[in-house]
């Protein structure tokens, strides 16, 4: 990025595009890290929802079920932090640092300390007094910046700082992705509403939903659609905030420049290797002449200088 652009931040569309590309090229292990945490939580939430809305004895085990949901929530946040860690390593063109037991515990502690307050504060931030993009970015940054090296206070400090960075870009991205999320929700709803009819059409399976399509419009159906939408859209959001933090921290650390230089070095390697390969051929005179010609632009060197040049190779 150019200096002025580094201060202003990347454009919203550029960053969404980069996040999508990064996610598309991410190895399966990175996506597995995300879904290992998110799928159990979404399934648990659906079970909790259905249980609380249908079971007449649900009030008897409400406290136990809530505690199970908390554990699933923290489990998800832990894996999301690992996912963003891998995404950041991928962007920095470096292997992710090995995850020690100590680092894993620290990530879990940081998530346990900060994320629960977000359950209340993020919905409350829709009240105009609190700025939703800022609060939302803060809690996403807590996930993105918890790498197992910093304690809770440092992660809070860094996330606070990054949340205030490039507010316009953050707001635009949230607006765009809100539209995208709505679109995914409609898609999933349309597919799931059409499924019973399709089953009847192709396999002759008659069900309650084909006899009365309106029976699909229950609260569990909408909860399931929200769950599916979350599983589809949230990895993009997490990648976006991981990238935002990466670029935000790069203003001071220059990590983005290092990653770009590394990428340039990797690209230029194959261009250099044919010369070095030809230089290592047994025909020494040919090698020296080639090197000399490349230096002098066609003028041949004396054998002595050419020998020195060969030595340099």
């Amino acid at each position, binding site marked *: 990025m150019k200096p002025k652009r580094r201060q202003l931040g990347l454009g919203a569309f550029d960053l969404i595009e980069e996040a999508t590309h990064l996610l598309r090229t991410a190895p399966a292990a990175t996506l597995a890290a995300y879904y290992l945490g998110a799928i159990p939580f979404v399934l648990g939430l659906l079970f*909790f929802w259905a249980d*609380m809305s249908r079971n007449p004895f649900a009030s008897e085990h409400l406290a136990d079920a*809530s505690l199970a949901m908390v554990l699933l929530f923290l489990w998800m946040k832990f894996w999301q932090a690992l996912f963003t860690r891998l995404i950041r390593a991928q962007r920095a063109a470096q292997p992710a640092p090995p995850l020690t037991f100590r680092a894993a515990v620290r990530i879990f502690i940081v998530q346990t*300390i900060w994320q629960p307050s977000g359950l209340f504060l993020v919905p409350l931030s829709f009240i105009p007094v609190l700025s939703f993009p800022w609060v939302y970015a803060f809690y996403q940054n807590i996930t993105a910046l918890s790498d197992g090296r910093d304690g*809770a*206070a440092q992660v809070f400090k860094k996330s606070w700082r990054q949340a205030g960075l490039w507010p316009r870009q953050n707001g635009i991205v949230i607006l765009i992705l809100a539209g995208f999320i709505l679109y995914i929700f409609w898609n999933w709803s349309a597919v799931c509403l059409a499924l019973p009819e399709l089953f009847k059409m192709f396999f002759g399976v008659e069900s309650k939903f084909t006899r009365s399509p309106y029976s699909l419009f229950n609260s569990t159906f909408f909860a399931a659609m929200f769950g599916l939408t979350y599983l589809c859209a949230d990895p993009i959001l997490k990648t976006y905030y991981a990238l935002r933090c990466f670029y935000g921290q790069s203003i*001071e650390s220059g990590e983005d420049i290092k990653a770009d230089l590394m990428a340039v070095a990797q690209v230029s390697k194959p261009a250099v290797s044919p010369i070095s390969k030809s230089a290592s051929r047994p025909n020494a005179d040919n090698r020296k002449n080639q090197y000399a010609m490349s230096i002098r632009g066609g003028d041949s060197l004396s054998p002595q200088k050419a020998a020195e040049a060969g030595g340099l190779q």
Partner: protein
Amino acid sequence: MPSITQQRCFNHAMREAVARCPECKQFFCRECVTEHDDRVLCANCLRNLTRKPFVQRFALARILVAAQCLFGLLIAWYFFFLVGRGLLKLPNSFHEGTLWQVNSNDQE
């Protein structure tokens, strides 16, 4: 912002500045800065960065971290408890999606 060539060292007013600390944003001469973790930092900021964090300095702080975790856990527990209670309180017709349907007997 004036360029670094016009700046003087924060600690030594007579010396030319050669670097700016990315932590405190002050200018320093070559004797006052050092490289740490691929960054050029001033001595003060380096000391602050390498100082053992609060948690490691005091064993009591571990209890504080445990209390914070417990507090976080309780907040999340209370949130899901409220969600569950809210779901329990909603009428069955809402969950079944029949809340908005008009009963033909009522119409007559």
